[in-house]
């Protein structure tokens, strides 16, 4: 009956899980980091349903569902209950489960089933049935969210404690059908990176020039990406490192980012999803305080303020603390933004207070400086969009900042980061990762329906080009674009004493609908991943929004 299929399963893949010994098997979030091992029926006498006692069922983990083997029977029973209740509710309709209910973290199957059961009050004649015990949490959506999160946080924290930085990572690639010349171009780029890594600068120099020639024969995204990468390689070879992120400082990064904001949905998605989480955290609060780690032009806040203004029962008092770097021309950029937001607040009837803080690095911040009021008085949200990865430049900086955040006692911390591993130690690997990543980004710009030549498009490309240059040409304190993946950030946040706050199907849906407004929106996709939302181009996730709260034990 049991067949020995050691051979046939050698090449077979199990996405989640790891090669950890029995009893300690764990699942990782998808996209997976680390090698997977498939559980073979009969192999090592292992239980066919999973990795033993406290471990996750590896087979289901590979398919995206985290269920402990020891919970399997219980989950099965709950599914049966749910089916029965759904079946008998057919007359009244279960449509509200589809339309109104907010779903969270589908990978946690046990919690999902439990939340569905709680949503559907069993009809009176079923109460006598021994299987249908009354649900422990209330059936309303809002309350359910918080207790739901609590139980899930526990699961998440446990898996994160064991979660390590793995040397193996996922390399998602989406190619647009390439012609022969495109293949040669990529080949030459890779060869050049190799030569640079081996410090064969003569060869690297020759290749970089060749890339320039090949790039000209290409069209669209491929040509632009290749050109930026070639330039970055040249800078690295000739050691012409731009200092402090400005290739051409006459064009401020803030301005470039504004054009990027207009051309494609990434920043809008980031702001939108972060604001969703903040709004939910601010429900019922009468005084709220947002600490924005990178105020820039303050583009995230009008929408939040308007949503607060529309709150049934009236808006809370809204305080915004904006942090930003010193300006080269010594102007008070922060105050200007604060002033504009104050004017908006005035027109929409929101009590508003603003404070700006200039800092070279977030690590220079001391929470005491921010005059944060106690939780009984104000509800705090800390927001960071594409800022935290810069702290990975200096050892200890990120830990200091995470400690500072904890000291601010926020109700919620919202974080948006690039979904990429651009901080590995090996240059060629970093180069390859970046090539894949920015190719997808440029591709999406190409499909954005913005007709070339357009200033918006060119500026957006420059914005990305600067990042490419930084990733490829710079090292040490100059290299600030140290992007890391969601999985890596999740591990870091978990270790630092934060629990996840899950973004749900309502945020997902609205984010998806937002994308449809962009021309060429068809290529953009929102994906749910362990309670976080990611925006990608086709099947390649490019940015990730996650939300956090202080761990229960803090």
């Amino acid at each position: 009956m049991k067949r020995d299929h050691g051979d046939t399963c050698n090449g077979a893949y199990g996405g989640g899980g790891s090669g950890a010994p029995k009893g300690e098997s764990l699942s990782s979030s998808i996209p997976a980091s680390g090698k997977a091992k498939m559980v073979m029926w009969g192999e090592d006498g292992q239980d066919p349903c999973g990795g033993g006692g406290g471990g996750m069922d590896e087979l289901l983990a590979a398919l995206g569902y985290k269920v402990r083997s020891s919970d399997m029977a219980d989950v099965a029973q709950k599914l049966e209950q749910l089916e029965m209740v759904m079946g008998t509710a057919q007359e009244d309709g279960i449509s509200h489960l589809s339309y109104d209910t907010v779903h969270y973290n589908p990978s946690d199957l046990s919690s999902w089933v439990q939340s569905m059961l709680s949503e559907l009050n069993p009809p009176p004649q079923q109460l006598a049935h021994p299987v249908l015990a009354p649900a422990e949490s209330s059936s309303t959506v809002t309350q359910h969210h918080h207790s739901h999160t609590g139980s899930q946080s526990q699961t998440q924290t446990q898996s994160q404690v064991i979660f390590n930085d793995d040397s193996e990572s996922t390399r998602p690639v989406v190619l647009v059908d390439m012609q022969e010349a495109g293949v040669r171009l990529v080949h030459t780029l890779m060869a050049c990176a190799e030569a640079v890594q081996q410090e064969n600068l003569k060869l690297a120099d020759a290749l970089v020039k060749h890339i320039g020639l090949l790039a000209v024969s290409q069209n669209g995204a491929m040509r632009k990406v290749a050109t930026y990468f070639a330039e970055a390689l040249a800078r690295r070879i000739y050691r012409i490192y731009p200092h402090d992120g400005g290739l051409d400082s006459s064009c401020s990064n803030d301005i470039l980012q504004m054009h990027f904001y207009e051309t494609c949905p990434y920043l809008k998605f980031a702001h939108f999803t972060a604001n969703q989480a903040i709004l939910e955290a601010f429900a019922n609060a009468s005084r709220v305080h947002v600490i924005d780690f990178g105020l820039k032009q303050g583009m995230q806040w009008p929408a939040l303020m308007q949503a607060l203004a529309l709150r049934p029962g009236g808006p809370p008092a809204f305080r915004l603390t904006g942090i930003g770097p010193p300006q080269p021309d010594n102007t008070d950029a922060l105050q200007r933004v604060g002033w504009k937001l104050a004017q908006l607040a005035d027109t929409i009837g929101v009590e508003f207070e603003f404070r700006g803080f200039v800092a070279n690095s977030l690590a220079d911040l001391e929470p005491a400086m921010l005059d944060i009021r106690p939780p009984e008085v104000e509800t705090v949200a800390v927001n960071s969009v594409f800022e935290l990865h810069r702290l990975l430049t200096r050892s200890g900086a990120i830990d200091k900042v995470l400690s500072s955040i904890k000291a601010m006692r926020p109700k919620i911390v919202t974080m948006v980061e690039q979904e990429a591993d651009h901080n590995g130690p090996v240059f060629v690997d970093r180069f390859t990762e970046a090539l894949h990543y920015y190719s997808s980004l440029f591709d999406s710009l190409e499909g954005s329906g913005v007709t070339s030549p357009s200033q918006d498009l060119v500026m957006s490309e420059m914005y990305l080009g600067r990042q490419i240059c930084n990733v490829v040409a710079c090292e040490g304190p100059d290299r600030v674009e140290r992007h890391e993946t969601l999985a890596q950030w999740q591990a870091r946040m978990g270790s630092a004493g934060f629990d996840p706050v899950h973004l749900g199907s309502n945020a997902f849906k609205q984010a998806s609908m937002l994308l449809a407004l962009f021309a060429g929106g068809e290529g953009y996709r929102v994906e749910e991943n362990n309670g976080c939302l990611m925006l990608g181009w086709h099947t390649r996730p490019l940015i990730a929004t996650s939300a956090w709260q202080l761990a229960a034990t803090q």
Partner: protein
Amino acid sequence: MAGSNEVNLSESKMVVPLNMWVLISNFKLKYNLLRRPDGTFNRHLAEFLDRKVPANANPVDGIFSFDVIIDRATNLLCRIYRPAFTEEPQPSLSDLEKPVDAEFVPVIVFFHGGSFAHSSTNSAIYDTLCRRLVGICKAIVVSVNYRRAPENRCPCAYDDGWSALKWVSSRSWLQSKIDSKVHIFLAGDSSGGNIVHSVALRAAEAEIEVSGNILLNPMFSGEERTESEKKLDGKYFVGLRDRDWYWRAFLPEGENRDHPACNPFGPRGKSLEGIKFPKSLVVVAGLDLIQDWQLAYAKGLEKAGQKVKLLFLEQATIGFYLLPNNDHFYTVMDEISSFVNPDG
């Protein structure tokens, strides 16, 4: 009502491993939420709930994958799975489409299931299945992300399948060294199996050579209610009500289930006699309520003088191939491996 439901639930629990029961029941209940009585589909919730995985150009267990937009105009995407190269642990971007090195490599063009409405190429269940196919069959797998119902009705999925077939057959890097030809097999489960048939038919008419068809629990039906449908309705995860919904969502408006896309050997079907149709492997699960239609399909091929091998798995339910913890999985994988390799 509640009583008979209880009996049904325990029956299905007895024939599959517990974790498989949990997996398929989970899909069943979630899918119930997504189908609306008015024929519309909650696509946003569907995408939220679906567990997806990205492609991975780093080999895992000896297999790597990458996605290709094969048609920019329609955004048609395929995920390609290849065995890792022995010389390089990590294929570089330019090596992803490196020419095949073996004398003979079967290229399996795969259409995922989901009753035409659910799942995608990057759904975890199908990414995992495709990887298993690569490992077991020593094949290259091209998984097609065809457009789904109800937003895109018949023949959109078939058109996408056809585009993918043309693309695959024209890739020189997929040619086997022995004869510089691309050896294509079409494979699919559920709705994917249905797509296999239509694409193969089109290929035969256009004289593109397809070496074989693999239909795993293929989705066919007809207006008539068959014995198996009456007997097994609602007993093993699937009921007639949901089957009917999916056909109404996929078939052109106003059509019924005798439409040839649904019922290829029915009253409106086209004769396959004399057509150079590929050999077929048809896998039927004995606890699948639509088995009578699947058996009729195999019979229909036979009667038209086509080569067909029927694999009937008595105690198998739908979805048995999603997890490797049952006998049926291995039986089928072995059969598929023999089917696509020259001596099979």
